[in-house]
């Protein structure tokens, strides 16, 4: 009972972007507590945007100052090149998504009020609003930042939950189609909790195997511990379940269409971009760093998962009649394309190529998908957003600019040259080919072709079908939405025409690979 425990060193400067976001979230809660109702959103919006921008600036500053070569906070968090790149991506995408949230009344005024009840009427009359959306979103973004940087499995688990829990709530807050929204929240929550239990059990088994949850130590143990391979394999598989669930890889994809459809569209946009980026970052770190020595074992498994994911995503997208479900399946298929890059490991140079390809793809896809969902928010009829595809018929004749932009996003999803999507696929597939995964790339190309068929079908529907007489109207976008669509379209064009700067950036971020 004597002697002091040495205080751990924590590199606050390195963690600053995350701390800023979490700090702003906590301040946001205080605003909710103490600010009068009419002032809340006026405070929240600048607070949220400023904190995201500030965190981004800090991340950039960190990257300029030099990328650290050792994990921070006693090995718990690794702020390395890829992590900084992913942080930047998530922060920008979150910033854009917030602009979308700000814009329209996507969120219910009083979540506790029964749909159609007098209580709800009352909340509408009072123009009540759940401004908690902003702090919740900041907490989720904070979790997204921590997840891909987590260098031990406990931190990863906590980050996973910090990221997911606010999202479960946000899913259930749609103003329109409350039943669908609540259903989405319940489904996402139950399945998310279920899958994170798998992740935790995997963590427990790996802890049993290696005696530590630190990724570097687990990797060291791979060579030295013998005779407990069953623990290791099952543990790795369980970890995989938790991570693949968040990505939406088959056979863990079932939640994605339902949740994407039911959630408020801005939240869907955030999930489809930010969460996917964060989850891929974490998957890469866990499997490349923690289980890097085991790649001969996990690669065939991921091989199968990638094929299944691409096929399921592309084929099921074809018969969708709901625009948001269609985009959800498209997101599943893109998850599959990205998994192709995860498998393309090998020499250090090969890893760098694969990683930089993945990073580029994530940025490109993130922007395009946020833009696509932003367009979805603008096409409305009496019941809210018009989700059914038949309602989109002839949109090109009524609002050619909007339909043209959406068509452009779809072409980017399909990977047509001169859009950002092309270079994403190109970079990832090229890395996969040089990594010896040619069959996988062939499946990928075929799946892209199948998916392209559906995207083109939507374009044809928009431009060459006659509009319905009582078709949906396109609301005049507010500045926020217009900015989102504009930014997304610009990013899609610029990355399609001038991909080199970002490819270079991704390459230099990937150069050092993940620290150990």
């Amino acid at each position: 009972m004597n002697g002091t425990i040495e205080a751990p060193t924590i590199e606050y400067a390195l963690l600053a972007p995350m701390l800023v976001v979490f700090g702003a979230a906590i301040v946001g809660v205080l605003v909710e507590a103490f600010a009068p109702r009419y002032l809340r959103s006026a405070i929240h919006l600048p607070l949220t945007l400023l904190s995201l921008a500030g965190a981004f600036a800090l991340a950039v500053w960190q990257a300029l100052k030099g990328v650290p070569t050792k994990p921070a906070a006693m090995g718990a968090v690794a702020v390395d090149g890829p992590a900084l790149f992913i942080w930047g991506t998530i922060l920008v995408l979150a910033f854009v998504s917030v602009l979308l949230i700000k814009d329209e009344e996507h969120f219910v005024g009083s979540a506790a009020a029964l749909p159609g009840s007098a209580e709800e009427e009352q909340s509408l009359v009072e123009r009540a609003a759940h401004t908690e959306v902003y702090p919740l979103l900041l907490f989720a973004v904070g979790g997204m930042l921590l997840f891909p940087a987590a260098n031990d499995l406990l931190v990863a688990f906590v980050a996973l939950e910090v990221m997911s829990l606010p999202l479960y709530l946000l899913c259930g807050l749609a103003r329109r189609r409350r039943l669908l929204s609540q259903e989405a929240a319940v489904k996402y929550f139950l399945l998310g909790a279920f899958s994170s239990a798998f992740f935790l059990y995997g963590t427990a088994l790996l802890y049993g195997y290696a005696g530590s949850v630190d990724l570097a130590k687990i990797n060291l143990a791979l060579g030295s511990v013998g005779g407990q391979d069953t623990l290791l394999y099952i543990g790795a598989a369980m970890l995989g379940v938790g991570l693949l669930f968040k990505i939406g890889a088959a056979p863990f994809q079932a939640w994605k269409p339902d949740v994407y459809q039911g959630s408020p569209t801005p939240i869907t946009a955030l999930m489809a971009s930010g969460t996917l980026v964060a989850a891929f970052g974490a998957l890469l770190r866990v499997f490349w760093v923690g289980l890097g020595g085991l790649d001969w074992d996990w690669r065939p498994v991921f091989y199968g998962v990638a094929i299944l994911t691409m096929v399921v995503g592309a084929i099921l997208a074809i018969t969708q009649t709901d625009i948001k479900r269609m985009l959800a399946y498209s997101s599943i298929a893109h998850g599959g394309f990205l998994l192709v890059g995860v498998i393309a490991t090998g020499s250090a140079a090969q890893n760098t190529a694969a990683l930089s390809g993945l990073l580029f793809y994530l940025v490109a896809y993130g922007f395009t998908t946020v833009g696509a969902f932003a367009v979805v928010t603008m096409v409305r009829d009496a019941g809210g957003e018009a989700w059914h595809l038949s309602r989109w018929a002839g949109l090109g004749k009524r609002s050619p600019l909007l339909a043209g932009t959406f068509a452009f996003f779809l072409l980017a999803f399909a990977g047509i040259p001169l859009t950002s999507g092309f270079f994403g696929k190109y970079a990832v597939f090229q890395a996969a080919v040089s990594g010896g995964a040619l069959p996988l790339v062939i499946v990928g190309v075929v799946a892209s072709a199948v998916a392209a068929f559906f995207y083109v079908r939507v374009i044809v529907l928009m431009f060459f079908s006659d509009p319905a007489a009582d078709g949906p109207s396109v609301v005049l976008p507010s500045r926020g939405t217009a900015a989102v669509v504009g930014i997304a379209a610009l990013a899609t064009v610029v990355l399609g025409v001038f991909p080199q700067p970002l490819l270079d950036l991704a390459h230099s971020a990937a150069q050092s690979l993940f620290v150990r």
Partner: protein
Amino acid sequence: MELYVPILVLAVLAAGFAVFSVGIAPFTGPKRWNRAKLDAYECGIEPTPQPVGGGRFPLKYMITAMLFIVFDIEIIFLYPWAVAFDRLGVFGLVEMVLFIVTVLVAYAYVWRRRGLDWD
């Protein structure tokens, strides 16, 4: 062993007093009957008829219950800290203050949003 003798004596005394008090009461006290004495004890409130199987309780208790769970379990971290706080030094203190402040923020939110109001 010597160390525990006083405790043992105290325990015996306490137990003896309890047994003695309860045992002597029926013989010494007055015996006047009324309905209220036979009813179940509910803090002085008149008992309400309950459906079979316990029935359902109003949702308003749920929020209280949830708040209890959260704040109760957060405090788990105070125990390890309390045990080793002198060895953790200033760093431990600062971290714990940060932790408590964060919990207090949540508490403030609940309080301001009337989560603590009974009705």
